[in-house]
């Protein structure tokens, strides 16, 4: 669409209808990277669903493409495409196929705000008419999409990497599925490890002031508090804060064994830099996106201090398991310009898409009757992903593996996260009984609490 067409449309809204056809046909429908890339993956599953009746199955992908999460957002789409390239190709035809049904993917980018995510989701569902929406990326976006999903019962919503607890834990939507674990599950094993092995008894937290960090801090505290630890101070930093110097000043200089930091990307770098510059000496415990490649790869005075930092996450670059290695190899082959390792976001979107393909295969691509059969099949899907076994609970929430890692300096002098332990089949309550006092309220600024 050129600018002149816009103008015409503005002038005469009757033309809108005609133009609509032009625009809707011009959507960004992405074909796979090509047979060369796809050829390396085994087209294992497509044969199983050979009886699909030849209609088109339309997938919508929603991730963040603006702002600080733009890079993870791009990696998220790689996750979707990798799953399709691996499980939905045919030797005889280009494109993605489930048997005789072609699968198309329409992508939309948000800016990590619920408002825009919702608008883009509406566009995908209503204008682009996708059957299944995969996304979004961040926590509050997910909560908004879950609410929207309730109003569109005949479409299937599959999470992206959004990890707020309440997307599935409280008041779930019947047509919303999450094959990735949530932000609390991502901390499984960390609290016990910090208390029992590292002997951290008094911890201060520093985290951003919104739902995802609440979930992360909560997940850490479920285990840490239960083990007898004390979180003596919580610093909730307003979104958008860049200068952490006064947050640093607020951290007690004695009586603190470690600082739990749940900040992402540039914020983590800013905090670590300023903490180091202020001469701080405490050890760190990291949230799932706190000590990632960006942080470890950034040179700075804080580097030495990061050695010994413990963190937990559903993925580990150095897991060295066969399934993981195969997944990483395929990622590098398909996306030569990708990140050094497929990150948390790529893996989440990958697992979600794999789940969708398994579900579709189970019903032979049948999406009729308001997708009822498909959704029932999808709820029963379980598979072995790159990191381990994934199954859904009664709220359609994943039960899956989780890693605890520690930052160590490698032989080459570079920092890397080394796996300490892996927990399989982590459920959404982290093993706590349903009537546990820690689950009595949604996680928030003040809950849970063990000062």
């Amino acid at each position, binding site marked *: *669409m*050129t*600018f002149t067409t*816009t*103008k015409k*449309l*503005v*002038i*005469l*809204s*009757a033309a*809108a*209808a005609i*133009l*609509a*056809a032009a*625009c*809707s046909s*011009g*959507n*960004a429908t992405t074909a796979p990277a090509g047979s060369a890339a796809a050829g390396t993956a085994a087209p294992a599953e497509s044969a199983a669903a050979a009886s699909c009746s030849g209609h088109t199955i339309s997938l919508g992908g929603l991730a963040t*493409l*603006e702002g600080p999460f733009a890079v993870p957002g791009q990696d998220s789409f790689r996750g979707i495409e990798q799953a399709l390239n691996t499980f939905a190709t045919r030797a005889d035809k280009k494109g993605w196929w489930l048997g005789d049904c072609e699968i198309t993917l329409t992508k*939309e*980018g948000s*800016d990590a*705000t*619920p*408002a*825009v995510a*919702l*608008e883009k989701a*509406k*566009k995908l*569902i*209503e*204008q682009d*008419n996708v059957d299944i929406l995969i996304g979004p990326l961040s926590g*509050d976006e997910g*909560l*908004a999409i879950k*609410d*929207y999903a309730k*109003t*569109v019962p005949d479409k299937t919503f599959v999470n992206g990497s959004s990890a707020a607890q309440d997307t599935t834990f409280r008041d779930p939507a019947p047509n919303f599925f999450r094959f990735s674990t949530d932000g609390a599950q991502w901390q499984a094993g960390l609290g016990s490890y910090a208390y029992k092995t590292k002997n951290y008894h008094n911890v201060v937290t520093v985290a951003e*002031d*919104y*739902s995802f960090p609440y979930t992360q801090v909560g997940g850490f505290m479920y285990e840490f508090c239960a083990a007898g630890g004390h979180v003596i101070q919580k610093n909730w930093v*307003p*979104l958008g804060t860049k200068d952490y110097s006064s947050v640093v000043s607020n951290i007690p200089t004695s009586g603190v064994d470690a600082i739990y930091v749940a900040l992402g990307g540039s914020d983590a770098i800013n905090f670590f830099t300023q903490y180091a510059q202020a001469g701080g000496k405490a050890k760190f415990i990291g949230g799932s996106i706190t000590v990632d490649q960006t942080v470890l790869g950034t040179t700075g005075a804080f580097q030495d201090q990061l050695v010994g930092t413990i963190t937990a996450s559903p993925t580990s670059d150095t897991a060295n398991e066969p399934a993981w290695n195969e997944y990483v190899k395929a990622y590098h082959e398909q996306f030569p310009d990708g990140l050094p390792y497929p990150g948390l976001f790529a893996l989440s979107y990958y697992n979600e898409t794999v789940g969708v393909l398994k579900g579709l295969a189970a019903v032979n691509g049948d999406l009729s009757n308001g997708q009822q059969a498909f959704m029932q099949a999808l709820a029963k899907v379980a598979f072995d992903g790159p990191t381990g076994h994934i199954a859904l609970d009664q709220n359609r929430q994943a039960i899956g593996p989780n890693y605890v890692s520690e930052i160590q300096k490698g032989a080459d002098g570079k920092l890397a996260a080394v796996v300490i332990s892996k927990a399989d089949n982590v459920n959404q309550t982290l093993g706590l009984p349903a009537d546990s006092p820690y689950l009595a*309220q*949604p996680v*928030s*600024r*003040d*809950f849970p609490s063990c000062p």
Partner: protein
Amino acid sequence: MSGTAAAAGGKAARRWGLPLAGIALLILYPLVLPLLFNANQARYWTLSIGSQSLILGIVALSLIFMSGYGGMVSLAQAALAGFAAYMVALMNLLPSTTATGGTIGLGLPSIPSAVIALVLATLAGALVGAIASRSSGIYFLMLTLAIAVGFFYVVLQNYQFLGGHIGFAGIVGPTGQPRQNPIAFYYLCLVVAGLAYVGLRYLVRTQLGLTFQGIRDNPRRMRALGYRVSLHRVAIFAIGGFVAGLSGVLGVWYRGNISPGVVDLSRTIDVLIIAVVGGLGYPIGAFVGAVAFLILDIFASSVTLFGFSFDERFNTLIGLAFVVIVIVAPHGLTGLVDRGWRAARRRFSSVGAPVAAAAADVPVENPMDAIAAPPIDPIDQRDPDSMGISR
């Protein structure tokens, strides 16, 4: 609007023909869509394009009203709309306890909620006016921008009463879920937008409206004629707040939820872009700009220009389009059409193509002209006795 059309002579037909055609088009729009699209797409074009343009158009209209008739380019309008949306949520939601212990929600029906929200938005507008109306020009622009951003940070951080980063969900308007009944919601928006437009067009011919224009042109003289200018400026803001509030109420019903993203900096800039692209000098430009903006925003990622795909660089395209419009068409798209229309009319005395309802729109003062305007008294402009003041 007019019964004259029925009894129309040729002249009346010419005067009312275009607006009536435009109105008919707007009314028929959602009814025609199902003939062209499948149900989902028709719904999308009814709601996400149709209703949303009207909703965005109303808030841009409030900005155009304030700049055109009040001489004040206010960037606080998106925030005022958001304020009304939040108020609707607080009135409408069932009482509940937030995680931090605050109690929110009065559980009122949707219409009383909206009425209260509009009253509060009007008051909030007046309050902003009381703060901002002492400054003028570019200072005013920046001050209202800062007020808007300040409001954003309040709602972003307040979990006790305003829902913080997540905001509130589950707000339902009088027509129910827009998705369930898109056409009803579209007409609701159309009626509100029409009333706002006609109301403002009427207002400018009233005593109060004339007063506003007098203040825009020459506040000093208005003071000397016995008007309390500061009070009238507050009144302009109150009306601007009311109109922006209408947009906020419809917006929260449209989305069903409200979150800080609706009042952030980019949304504030969006409203300015809509008003400028549509034409700051034309009330109808608010809606023209909204349609253009939405189309560009939604479809920019599928644009290919000179062989370059804007797939991922759609923001560059939006920025370029905006800069080009500001440079080549300071009166926006409506101004462009208006000028073309007048030129065409001059050339062919008969009525030509049904170019635009815009041509029937009366241009108001465009603040972008103010700069190029000649000094008030062209001859020997300097006032010798007032020299002491400026020195």
